[in-house]
C-alpha cells in the first residue's frame, strides 16, 4: 500500500462521487459548467479504465494480475476490499465507454429535460464502478443500491405519464429484489461467517453438511436478486416496459444494469460454486442454463411481437441476457470466453441502438409503426406519386446505415462482432473434447441461432417500415453531438471484429481466471483462515 499507483483502483469510485457531489452545489442554471464537469469526469474515467485494463492484464509482463485495495489497510478478514481483476477491468471499460457516449448524447437535448441530470449520471457511474470493483458481498449491496437509486432518477428523467407509470413498477420490483439480496447475504453470513467473496470461496468446501442446505438456499435467494436485475424469465417482465419508456440518454447507460446482474452471477457463482465448491460445486448450473434458454425464447417472441422500436431494443436486451446466462450455465471455460466477447459486443450494440432509435423516431409522426403494420395486414395502397425522385437526405442515409449495423450486431450476422461472438460460443460447444454433444448443448445451439433469426426478421421488418414504407414526415434534425456517440459505439463494434484476435485472447484469459479463481482468492486472502476455528464462533 504505497505509491499512488496502488490507489488507482479506488479512483473510478471517487471521481464520479466528487464530480456528482460538486454538481449538486452548482446552480441548476449553469448547465454548461455542469456538462463540462460531467464530460471531464467521464473522460478521466475512460482513460482510467483503459489504464486499469492494461494493469489487470499485466501488459508489460503479460501475466495478468489481481490488484487488491484494502480500505484503511485492514486485513481482508475485517476490512472491506476492492479487487481489480480482468473481468472487473473489462466491465469498468464498458461502463466508461457507455458513460461518455450517453453523456455526450444528452448534451444536445436530454440534459435540459429535468433537474440534476448530471449529478444522477455521475452517481450512476459511481454505483456501477463500485459494483464491479468490490470484493465484499455487503459492499456489493451498497453499490447496487447507489446504482439503483441513481437509475430511478434517470429512469424518471424527463417525467411524463408513461415514465412515471413504468418507473413506479421498476422501483417496486427493485426494492423487493434488494430485500431478497439482503436475506441472501445474511443467510450466507450466518452459515459461512464472512462476507468477503474470496474468503467465502475458501470456506464453501468446509461448510458442515447440515448447514450446506441453508447456505445453498441463501445463495439461491441472492441469485434471484441478481437474476431479477438480469431480466431472466420469469423475473424480467418489468424490463421491456421500463427500458422502452426511459429517455434515450438514460437508457443507454441503464441498459448496462442488466449486465451487472449477469456479472454478479458470473462472479459469485463461479467463485462459490466453481471448482473449489466442494460438495456444492456446480450448484444451480442447470437453473442458469434452463432459465437462460427460456429467457432467449421469451425474448425472441417479444422481438417478433413488438411494433415499437424501443420495445424491440428492450426485447433484445432480454435475448442477450438469456444468451449470457445460458452460456454461463454450461460451465465451460471456452464458452464463457465467447460469452464475455458477446457481452462486450451486445452492450455496445444495444446502447448504440437505443440512442439511434431516438434519432430515427424524431421525425416520425406518432403511431406510424402501427399504421405500417396495419397497412401490411390489410394491403392498403400507399400513394407513391409524391415520393418518386426525392433523394434520400444524408442524415437519413447515415441513420439507415447505422440501423443496418445494429441489426447485424444484434442478430449476430457477419461481418460484425455479433457474429464472431456467437461463433466463439458455438465453436467450443460443438467440440467438447471428444465427448458427444449433449441434448442441452443442442438446445442452446438452436436457441442461439433461432434468436438470431427472430431478431433479423424483426429488424428487417422494422427497418422497411421506418426507412422505406413510411418515411419520416420531416428529415430528423440530428446534431453532431447526437450522431457521434452512436458512431463511436458502432465503430467500437467494428474494431472488435477487426481486432477479434487480441480481444478474444483477453476474454479467454478472463474466463480462465474466473473459472479457476486461484489468483483472485490468494490475492485477497494471503493466508487462508484456518478451517475449523471458524466453528468456535458460535
Amino acid at each position: 500500500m504505497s505509491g499512488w499507483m496502488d490507489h488507482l483502483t479506488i479512483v473510478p469510485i471517487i471521481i464520479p462521487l466528487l464530480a456528482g457531489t460538486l454538481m449538486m452545489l452548482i446552480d441548476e442554471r449553469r448547465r454548461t459548467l455542469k456538462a463540462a464537469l460531467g464530460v471531464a469526469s467521464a473522460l478521466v474515467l475512460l482513460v482510467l479504465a483503459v489504464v486499469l485494463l492494461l494493469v489487470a492484464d499485466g501488459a508489460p509482463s503479460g501475466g495478468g494480475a489481481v490488484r487488491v485495495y484494502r480500505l484503511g489497510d485492514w486485513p481482508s478478514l475485517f476490512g472491506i476490499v476492492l479487487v481489480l481483476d480482468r473481468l472487473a477491468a473489462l466491465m469498468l471499460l464498458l461502463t466508461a465507454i457507455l458513460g461518455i457516449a450517453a453523456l455526450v448524447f444528452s448534451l444536445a437535448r436530454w440534459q435540459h429535460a429535468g433537474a440534476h441530470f448530471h449529478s444522477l449520471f455521475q452517481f450512476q457511474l459511481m454505483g456501477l464502478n463500485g459494483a464491479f470493483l468490490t470484493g465484499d458481498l455487503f459492499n456489493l449491496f451498497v453499490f447496487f443500491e447507489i446504482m439503483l437509486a441513481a437509475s430511478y432518477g434517470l429512469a424518471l428523467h424527463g417525467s411524463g405519464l408513461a415514465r412515471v407509470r413504468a418507473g413506479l413498477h421498476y422501483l417496486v420490483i427493485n426494492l423487493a429484489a434488494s430485500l431478497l439480496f439482503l436475506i441472501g447475504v445474511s443467510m450466507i453470513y450466518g452459515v459461512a461467517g464472512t462476507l468477503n467473496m474470496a474468503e467465502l470461496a475458501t470456506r464453501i468446501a468446509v461448510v458442515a453438511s447440515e448447514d450446506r442446505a441453508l447456505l445453498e438456499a441463501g445463495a439461491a435467494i441472492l441469485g434471484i436478486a441478481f437474476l431479477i436485475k438480469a431480466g431472466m424469465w420469469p423475473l424480467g417482465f418489468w424490463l421491456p416496459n421500463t427500458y422502452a419508456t426511459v429517455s434515450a440518454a438514460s437508457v443507454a447507460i441503464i441498459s448496462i444494469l442488466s449486465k451487472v446482474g449477469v456479472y454478479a452471477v458470473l462472479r459469485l457463482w463461479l467463485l462459490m460454486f466453481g471448482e473449489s465448491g466442494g460438495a456444492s460445486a456446480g450448484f444451480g448450473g442447470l437453473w442458469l442454463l434452463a432459465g437462460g434458454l427460456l429467457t432467449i425464447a421469451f425474448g425472441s417472441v417479444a422481438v417478433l411481437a413488438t411494433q415499437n422500436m424501443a420495445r424491440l431494443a428492450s426485447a433484445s436486451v432480454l435475448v442477450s441476457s438469456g444468451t449470457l446466462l445460458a452460456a454461463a450455465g454450461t460451465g465451460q471455460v471456452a464458452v464463457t470466453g465467447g460469452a464475455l466477447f458477446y457481452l462486450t459486443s451486445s452492450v455496445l450494440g444495444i446502447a448504440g441502438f437505443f440512442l439511434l432509435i431516438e434519432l430515427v423516431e424524431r421525425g416520425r409522426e406518432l403511431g406510424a409503426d402501427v399504421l405500417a403494420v396495419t397497412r401490411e395486414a390489410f394491403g392498403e395502397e400507399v400513394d407513391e406519386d409524391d415520393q418518386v425522385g426525392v433523394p434520400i437526405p444524408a442524415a437519413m442515409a447515415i441513420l439507415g446505415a447505422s440501423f443496418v449495423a445494429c441489426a447485424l450486431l444484434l442478430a449476430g450476422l457477419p461481418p460484425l462482432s455479433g457474429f464472431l461472438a456467437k461463433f466463439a460460443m458455438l465453436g467450443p460447444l460443438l467440440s467438447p473434447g471428444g465427448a458427444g454433444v449433449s441434448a442441452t448443448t443442442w438446445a442452446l445451439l438452436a436457441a442461439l441461432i433461432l434468436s438470431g433469426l427472430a431478431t433479423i426478421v424483426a429488424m428487417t421488418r422494422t427497418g422497411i417500415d421506418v426507412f422505406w414504407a413510411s418515411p419520416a414526415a420531416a428529415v430528423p434534425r440530428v446534431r453532431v453531438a447526437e450522431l457521434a456517440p452512436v458512431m463511436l459505439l458502432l465503430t467500437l463494434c467494428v474494431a472488435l471484429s477487426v481486432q477479434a484476435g487480441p480481444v478474444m485472447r483477453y476474454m479467454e484469459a478472463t474466463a480462465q481466471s474466473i473459472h479457476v479463481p486461484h489468483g483472485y482468492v490468494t490475492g485477497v486472502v494471503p493466508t487462508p483462515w484456518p478451517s475449523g476455528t471458524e466453528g468456535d464462533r458460535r
Partner: protein
Amino acid sequence: MELILALGIGVLTGSGVWLLLRPRTFQVIIGLSLLSYAVNLFIFSTGGLRTGAAPVLERGAVGHLATHADPVPQALVLTAIVISFATTALFLVVLLAARGLTGTDHVDGREKDR
C-alpha cells in the same frame, strides 16, 4: 426468544407480502416497509441470539468470540435501515407523482375496468 423472533419475522413478512400484492400504491409502500423491518430483524438473527451479552466487550474481561454479540450483523442492519429508509422516501415521491399524473392510486395508473 427464538420462537418470538421467528414469529415476529414471519408475521411481518406475511403481512408485507400480502400488502405488496395489493393494487393500491399506499398499500405497496407499507408492504415494502414491513418487509424491510422483517429483513432487518432477520439480519439481526444471523449473528446468533443471546440475552444479556455485552455489545462488544465485558467490562474488565478479555474479549472472547464466544461471549460477545457479533457486531457485523448490527453494522449490516444499520446500513440496511439507512438504505431502505432512503429508497422508501424516493418511492414515496414517485408514488405522489404517479398519483398526481394519473389521478388514481392504482399501481397500474388506471382503474381496472369493471
